[in-house]
Every structure is written in C-alpha cells, then in structure tokens.
C-alpha cells in the first residue's frame, strides 16, 4: 500500500480556484448568464459524481445505469410537483389503482409461496412464475382499458394522470427514495454474484426505465414531455414587476431583464450548493467513520474483510442503495432546473459515461476529487464542442469549400466530443489512475 501523498490537499487548494477562475473567464468573456447556467449543471454533475464515487471509490462497485437512476429522480420531480389531472383520474384512475393493487398482491403472494415451499427444489420456481404471469395477465385486463381512457383524455394538453401537486423541493427526497428502492432490487439480485453482473444489470434496468418512460404515456406523457413543472424559485416575469427588485436593479444600475434572469439562476445555484455541501459533509463524515474504514477494507480485500466477520454482500447493498439514491436526488434537481420532464434527454452518453469520466478524472475515493471532476468534465463537455469544431476546421482545411466530404465532417463534428472524452478516460486510467486529487490514505494507525 502506498503512503499518503502530502501534496494531494495542496493540489486541491490549487485546482478548485483554477476551476472557479475558468468559470469566471466564461463570465467575463462570454456572459455571466452562461457562466451561471454552466455552474448549475456543474453542481448537479458534482452531486451525481459524489453518488457514483460512493459506489466506486468507497466500495469498488461499477454502476452502468446512472442515467436510469437520474431518470427515476426526474420522474419523482414531475410526479410530486405537477397538479393532478382530475378528469384523467376519473376516467381511469380507479383501473390503474386496481391494476397496481393486483401487482402488489401477486408480488406478496409469490413471496409467501416462495417462503412456504422452501426446500421443495425446482417446483417453487414454477409456482412463482405461474403466479407472476397470472397476476400480470389479470392486471392487463384492468389496466388496458383504463390506460386507454386516460391517454384519450385531452391528449393534446394532458393525456396522463398528472402528479400530486406538492412543492417540488419535496421531490428531491422522493427521487432519492425511488432510485434507492430500484437500486435495492437490482443490488439484491446481482450483488454477491460476479462483479460484472451488477454492471450488466444496471445497464439493463436503466435502458428499461427509459423505455418505460418513453412509452407509458399515462404516467409520464411519454415523448410528448411534461413541461411547466412548478419552480421552487420565483419566475423572471414576476421579479421584473416587483417593486423591491426594480429598486435594487436601479440602485446597482443593471438591466431588469438581465438581472432577473441572473437572480433566478443564483437562487438555483444556492439551493444546489446547499444540497451539495450537505451531501459532501455527510459523505466525508461517513468516509472517516468506522463504517467508511470498513467499506475501504472490504474494497481492498474482500476475503480478509469477510474473514473478520464483515458481511460483504449486505455492506455492498447498503452503499449501492445510498449512492444510487444520491444520483436520484441529482436527477430530481436536474428536472427542477430544466422545468420539464423529457425522457429522451436521458441518453446513455449524457449521464452514465460522463459521470464515470468525472469520478475517474477527479480521483476515485476522494469526495473533493469527485466534485472537482464533476466541475471540470462538465465544463469541458460544454467547451469541447468549440474544440471539436476547431479540430474539424483544421482537418478539413485541405478539402475544397462546399465539398460533400467537408460538409459531412462538419455535420458530424459534435461526435468528436465522445471521442475526446473516451480518450480522456483511457489516458487517465492508464497514466493517472488515482485521478487529480487522489484518495487520502491515513498513515496513522
């Protein structure tokens, strides 16, 4: 085991101001509005990276379904905050509820049968499968007509059940719980088996969650998107017409329009920063607690840890659920920021891969590293577009103006971002696997 690198904390003190400096440069040269927009997404990315760092850096678990958990958080944000659509509920609410009850009942029944027939060998698998299939078919008889009625209720404006109409800030917690529950099921099935099964299963569940959100219109409105999700912060229009805000902008000498947009973004920034700092504090506490030491012991040597009486599988399950819940919280925050729920944005590239690059570039096992990685990678993901375009411009210089080949490369230039990010990940894994701010390993006994 390597000894601690004393320069790591000094490096952190150097790198964070550098990052903020880069953001400030964007503010000065491009616009402060853009800078705040990037900063807000940086904060959300950092929270996701924090969650993934828990799983990977503390416990060595590979989660390939980050976007699925983010989407679950997003769904929670939508369901909690949107007002319920009474007409749709009257049309099919009862049927949907009944269908869900049938699901739950058959689930409980299957579980009881599973418990009851312990030790009968293969037979109980068949019983459970029969109960599951029967329950599913029964629920379809109730669900299908109900869903049809819901989806045909004012399809242009609603066509779904709506939400609970509660304050959206509540959904951040709900999103975490929802993602955590799904993670629990996945973890229960795959943890304790070979390490890559978790990766494959999380990849699968995230694909299915996205497919579900795109196709189950009665719940999510599918690809028609849910827009106008209520905000936790004031709207620009309202701000512009309030007296005290006009007074402030007048005294500072700013344009009211610009100031209101900056103010709203700053509100978001402070909310996100609050969540980030709180989670960071909790993660740091956890890392330096006996629990954190145990997690690292398990990560570094599972056999030794289990010989010491640690239950490796259930500790893994615990940290997997917590990490996924944090990603779910960040997913809910993302939808809050966007103000709309659009299942098509959960592209595997946008979340899963980028977050992985963040954690590995920043420094796996170090919370500050994960946050720094979240900032840097998101910043460069945005700026890489410019770099990619420049590269293409240089590459295609010898080609004549207006040639088909040149047009093709200019149109596919955005794909270069992927290539660059893939390269960054590979280079870091090879030459700096501990990341920018490496994990601190205490030398004290």
């Amino acid at each position, binding site marked *: 085991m390597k000894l601690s690198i004393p320069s790591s904390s000094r490096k952190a003190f150097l790198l964070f101001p550098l990052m903020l400096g880069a953001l400030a440069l964007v503010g000065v040269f491009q616009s402060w509005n853009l800078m705040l927009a990037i900063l807000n997404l940086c904060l959300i990315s950092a929270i996701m990276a924090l969650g993934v760092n828990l799983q990977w850096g503390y416990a*060595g678990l*590979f989660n*390939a379904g980050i976007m699925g958990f983010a989407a679950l958080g997003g769904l929670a944000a939508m369901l909690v905050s949107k007002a319920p659509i009474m007409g749709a509920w009257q049309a099919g609410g009862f049927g949907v509820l009944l269908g869900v009850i049938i699901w739950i009942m058959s689930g409980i029944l299957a579980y009881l049968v599973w418990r009851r027939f312990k030790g009968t060998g293969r037979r109980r*698998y068949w019983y459970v499968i029969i109960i599951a299939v029967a329950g*599913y078919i029964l629920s379809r008889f109730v669900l*299908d007509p109900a869903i049809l009625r819901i989806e045909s209720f004012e399809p242009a404006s609603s066509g779904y059940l709506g939400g609970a109409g509660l304050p959206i800030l509540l959904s951040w917690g709900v999103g975490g719980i929802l993602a955590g529950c799904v993670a629990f099921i996945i973890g229960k*099935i*795959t943890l304790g*088996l*070979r*390490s*890559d*099964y978790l*990766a*494959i*299963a999380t*990849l*699968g*569940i995230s*694909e*299915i969650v996205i*497919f579900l959100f*795109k*196709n189950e219109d009665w719940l999510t409105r599918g690809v028609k998107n849910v827009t106008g999700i209520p905000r936790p912060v004031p709207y620009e229009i309202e701000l512009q017409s309030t007296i005290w805000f006009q007074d402030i902008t007048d005294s500072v000498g700013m344009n009211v329009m610009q100031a209101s947009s900056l103010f709203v973004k700053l509100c978001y920034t402070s909310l996100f920063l609050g969540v980030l700092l709180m989670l960071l504090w909790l993660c740091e506490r956890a890392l330096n607690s006996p629990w954190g030491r145990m997690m690292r012991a398990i990560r570094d040597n599972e056999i030794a840890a289990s010989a010491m009486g640690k239950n490796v599988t259930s500790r893994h399950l615990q940290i997997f659920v917590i990490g996924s819940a944090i990603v779910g919280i960040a997913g809910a925050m993302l939808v809050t920021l966007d103000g709309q729920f659009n299942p098509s944005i959960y592209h*595997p*590239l946008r979340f899963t*891969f980028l977050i*992985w690059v963040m954690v*590995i570039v920043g420094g796996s096992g170090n919370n500050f590293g994960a946050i720094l990685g979240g900032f840097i990678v998101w910043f460069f993901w945005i700026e890489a577009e410019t770099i990619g375009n420049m590269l293409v411009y240089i590459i295609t210089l010898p080609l004549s103006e207006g040639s088909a080949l040149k047009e*093709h*490369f200019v*149109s*596919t*230039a955005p*794909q*270069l*971002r*992927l*290539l*660059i*990010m*893939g*390269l960054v*990940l*590979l280079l870091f*894994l*090879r030459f700096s696997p501990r990341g920018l701010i490496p994990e601190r390993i205490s030398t004290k006994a």
Partner: protein
Amino acid sequence: MIDILNAITLLANYIIVPSLAYGSQLALGALGITLIYAVLRFSNFAHGEMMSFGTMISIFTIWLFQSEGISIHPLPTALLALPFSIIITIMLLLILDGTVFRYYQAQRVQPVTFMIVSVGVMFFLAGFIRFFIGTSQKNFADGERFIIKASQFKQITGLAEGVSIRTTQAITVIVTLVLVTAVFWFLNKTRTGKSMRAFSDNEDLALLSGIKPERVIIITWMLVGALAAVAGTLYGLDKGYKPFVYLQLVLPIFAAAIVGGVGNPIGAVIGGYVIAFSEAFITFAYKRFFTYLLPEEWAPESLVQMLSTEYKFAVSFVLLVIVLLVRPTGLFRGKTL
C-alpha cells in the same frame, strides 16, 4: 386442419424465421463476448461498437465496389465485402490490444477495472464511428430481396398465410452456421485452439506447460474481430445500419452470453437463440393465431400480446434476471465468481 396449418405458417413467418436470423446475429455477438471473457476474463462492453466498426468498414467497402460496378447479384455485395471488413476489424482490435488492453493484462488488474477500460474504448469507438459515417440510418442490402415471397408461398401451398424468407435472413443463418462450426473446430481440434482452452481453464498451469499468453491473447482478439465484423455486418444487412442501435445491442448480447453460461462457447450460441425466440414469442400479437385455432365465437378481440414490441429489450433483461436468480452459472455451466 387447414386452420392449424395456417396458424403454424403464421408463427413460422412472424416468429421462427426472423428469430432464427436475429438469434444467429446475437449468437455470433455472444460468442465474441464469451471468448473474451474466457481468455481475458472481463466483460467487454466495447463489443457492440466493435461490431459497429466492422459494419462501417463493410459499408465503405460496399460503396467502393458499387462505384466500381462490382457485384455478385443475386447475392448482396456485403458478402464480398466481409473479408475486408474482417481483416480491418482484426487490425483495429490488435491495435487496441497493443495500446490499451495489454498494459492492464500485464498488471493483472481486477476485472472491474478492465471493464471500465472497455467502457472507455466503447465511447472512443462510438465517437470515432459516428464521426466518420454519421448517425443516420444506412441500408446496404442489395441483390435479390426475397428467396420466397409470402404471395408466392400462398400460391404454391394454397394457404391463407404465407412465409416470406428474405435473402439476408437466409445468408445470416448460413454464414453463422459456417462460422460457428469453424470456431468450434478451431477450439476443439487445432493445437492453438486447445492451448486457448487450456489458458482459459487455468492460466498459471498453461504458462507452466509452455503456452505463450501473448500468442493466445492475439489469437483470441483475431477470432473476436472476425466474429464481431460478421455479426455486425449481418445485423446491419438484415435490419439496416444505425450506429446507436449497436450501443443498445450490447444488452441482449450480454444476456445471451450469461443465459448460456459466460465463458462457455456452446452456451453463448444457444443463449443467442434463446433470447431471440423469447423476445419474439413474448412480444408477438397472437390475435390471428388464436382466430385460426379457436372456434369463431371464441376469437379474441384484443391483440393478445404479452408485451408491446417496444419492450423487446426488457425481455432479454427479465430473462437475464431470472437466470441470475435461479442458476447464476447459466444454462451450460460457465464460469462464475
């Protein structure tokens, strides 16, 4: 009697023929993944993109041939392009092995680190491929489209339902048969193949018996390259080439490999067909099937569909989960833990 024949023909047309073709493509993909797992001991997430790369090379070669006027009508030009695509894909994989994978192999890193490396390779390749060929759908199947059309079948047999077999489907199955046989012959009969299996069973023991690991690994990558290029090209030929589909294809391929038993070549091939057939059986709308079989007054009104076709991926996932719960080693005992 005629009704029963009609019902069977219906199933043959909508389930058996397409699933045989799709299953063959999955089987080739899963065989590649399983070989990597058996020898290099990690789950290769980049396999889908390797298939995509092979397809891209095939398409470029086909375009070249088409512009030169070379064709093998009635067969698709893709068959002619396959050898080139195989060679270039093998070259790519050997370059990747030399620049990326070998370092970690020498370090004997944990499988999970290897997996992250393969994810990095996956995205690098994805960006590379999309940069060169773009993201739009490309159809490159030329030559005769059908071996037998549904209408011809109806004429010959006099049934109300017809079976249509597309040339691409027949080619897929035949090429798969040839390639899988060749791979199994290689693994079981040749000295190199035997040394590969020995290496897979016990690395240290194989080293002691004088098997060179570098050689085994290079041969493995070459086999995988050939399999990936063929699997990708056949899939693209059958369903049209769209780069991002190959990213999603990784899931059913992994499911096929795990259902069959990871690291077990026979299991991988069977697993491919298991996944393909269950996807088709579960997402098929049985309305017409039952209309033929049941008396008229019992004929179903709904589509009688277990799951809508959008959830094809869910089927492979559910199968994967069931196998993990019930028999984590897969149908044919593969490697676990």
